[in-house]
């Protein structure tokens, strides 16, 4: 895609992000990025019978950081954790009708945050 800015879908998710916030005592929690680099994402999941029943995020970052966070929560909600684990950065970008090339790496961390939260859930479960 030509680097002429954001798709309509990115802008919609930036304007009205879904699943913003945090979950008290989550079953899984993931944090990726670094404020020094300009992006930081926190992902909270509630899991029942290995199904993600609730998911929330908080993000510091640019327009695409916020939009990808919102999109990944939509994609993961209601999915089995094994399915959700397979969601990639490219899936998130595709669902948003693409991201400007330079944003593909730096601000497309939302799938990583989700995977970190699922890994955290599995770790906690294993420890039980």
């Amino acid at each position, binding site marked *: 895609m030509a680097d002429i800015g954001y798709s309509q879908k990115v802008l919609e998710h*930036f*304007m009205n992000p879904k699943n913003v916030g945090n979950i008290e005592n989550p079953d899984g929690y993931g944090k990726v990025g670094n404020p020094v680099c*300009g992006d930081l994402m926190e992902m909270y999941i509630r899991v029942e019978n290995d199904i993600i029943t609730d998911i929330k995020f908080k*993000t*510091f970052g*640019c327009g695409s950081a*916020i939009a990808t966070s919102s999109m990944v929560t939509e994609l993961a909600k209601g999915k089995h954790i094994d399915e959700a684990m397979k969601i990639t950065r490219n899936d998130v970008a595709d669902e948003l009708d693409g991201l400007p090339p330079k944003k593909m790496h730096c601000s497309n961390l939302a799938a990583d945050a989700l995977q970190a939260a699922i890994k955290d859930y599995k770790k906690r479960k294993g420890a039980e």
Partner: protein
Amino acid sequence: MEKIYLDHASAMPVDARVLKFAERYLKEVFGNPSSLHSAGLEAKRAIEDSRKKVAELINAENETCIVFTSGATESNNLAIKGTALRNMGKGKKVAASAIEHISVLNPLKELQKNGFELTLIPVDSTGQVDIEKLKAILSKDTTVTSIMCANNEIGTIQPIKKISEIVHENGLYLHVDATAAGGRIPIDVQNDGIDLLTLSSNDMYGPQGAGALYVKPGVKLQTILPGGGQERGLRSGTENLFAVAGMGEAARIAKHEMDQESKRLIGIRDKLMDEILKIEKSYLTGHRTQRLPHHVSFRFSGIEGESILLNMDMVHHIQVSTGSACTSRTLEPSHVLLAIGLKHEEAHGSLVLTLGRSNNIEQVPTVATAVKQTVGRLRELSPL
């Protein structure tokens, strides 16, 4: 909903009076200024008339001191490379402030790659050049020192006259990039002791595609664009007649209206400053008083600049600018904000508002409320 444009440092509309004046150089007068027939002479007259107006704006010794270029980037390149290369016999050192525009820094880095020694002069937390460091850095073989008149990102104005004295005691030439300051604050190249000065047409309501370099009589520089020898051999290429004619008229209007307009803009600027600084954890960037009349800039902790820009535009229909990494080509935060001592995470959350003739004091509450709501919404999303 009314749009409010607050990004005049990035691009400006052409003043209607400038357009009206210069229109005939698109429509009726089209001769090549180098041609000897009447069509050429008419074009030539327009160029020379513009040269005179630009010279008057900055009190140049005479109009032959003005070289027209394609814009500020070319003027900066000509000033820096043209003097450094021409005066290599005197030394191969060059210097600039750490907050210069990229069109000054990159030609300097190109010289550095080709064997020149480049030193960047640090600035204090307000963005003013550290005078003691400047003294220490310069030496007899520093052929060109480039210090901007005022900064486009933080608005800070440099004490150019004082800097000029130091440069001339210790080095050779002082180049001043006045892209952001031209037509906004008084510049007197003779009184301020400036050897080379960059001006941009569009930054003073002229058409894009024209700029100028003032070259003090006796300053030795060589062309970086050889060809047909226009502009006293310093800048070849057939002149951009419409843009150059427009630039002169823009300079004339700016000189005439500067006093009154800067007073008006300072009123709006300071009210915006007061209102926006009421927001929790908001900070002014740049100097509080030694700043451009049309410029006010901030940073907000816990949020990111590109998000601020998008939210201001999409929700509030207000166009602003930011020094955020996400809006740059390199994905690095602004070198200016880092040079004034901000940490990376602080430099990400900046907002730059630059005013123009279309803005008025009645817009201040709307803008301040929009900034407050934007910062509030993004902080709700932020984990910080």
